């Protein structure tokens, strides 16, 4: 879809929503299994948690957080327009507002997640 159609903001917003959604779904499946190990195999769980705290693990958490936050904000935009169709006129402005919130809260969040990896 992304390759065939030269989309505008609405198209990219939709594609990002779908891609981030599938990515979060994959993570949730893995995450429930790793939490199950707290009861089923605690030693294995402690090993997995070391991965979360490592540098590649932290980069992964920033990406996960970004997917989650984008999906959450764009989801609110979708719900708002579904129930107040008059807002669809401003769908582009709402999407830019999403990015403003995404960067304004997301960049400090990414810094908090990454800083222990650099000894801060």
């Amino acid at each position, binding site marked *: 879809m992304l390759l065939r159609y030269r989309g505008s903001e*609405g198209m990219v917003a939709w594609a990002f929503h779908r891609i981030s959604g599938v990515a979060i*779904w994959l993570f949730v499946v893995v995450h*429930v299994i790793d939490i199950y190990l707290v*009861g089923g195999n605690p030693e294995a769980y402690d090993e997995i948690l070391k991965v*979360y705290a490592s540098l590649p693990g932290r980069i992964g958490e920033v990406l996960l957080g970004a997917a989650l936050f984008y999906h959450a904000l764009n989801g609110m935009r979708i719900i708002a327009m579904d129930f107040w169709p008059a807002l669809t006129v401003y769908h582009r402005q709402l999407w830019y507002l999403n990015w403003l919130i995404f960067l304004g809260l997301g960049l400090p969040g990414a810094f908090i997640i990454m800083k222990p990896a650099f000894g801060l």
Partner: protein
Amino acid sequence: MALPSRAGRIRPHGGGFELFVWYLIRLSGLALFVLALAHFSILHFLYDPAEQDTKFITEMRWSSIFWRVTDWLLLMMVLLHSFLGVRVVVRDYVKGGARIVLLMGLYVLAFVIFALGTVVVMTLPRPPMS
């Protein structure tokens, strides 16, 4: 009258199961805006993953019924929202027999994840009262 929004899936006509699913995705999405973002913030901003292990979960995170119930609600909402969402994706791209096989596999996986998550959050022993 503005046109119906095409930002998400267009609201299905005529009611029935598909309209129910359409509402369910949006309601669980609202719940997840609070539950999932709070979950991520608590376990990545308030606590660092470096201080989390089995002991952290048994003695801190899941030492209270409140957090176990909250996390189970999060599990229910995320299972509904994510598996119904992937169902829409499968139905958009796959047809015929392959669609039926993939959807059956999807529902089985949803049940397995539901069972694993529910078992661990409900049966993990609590630390002894001090």
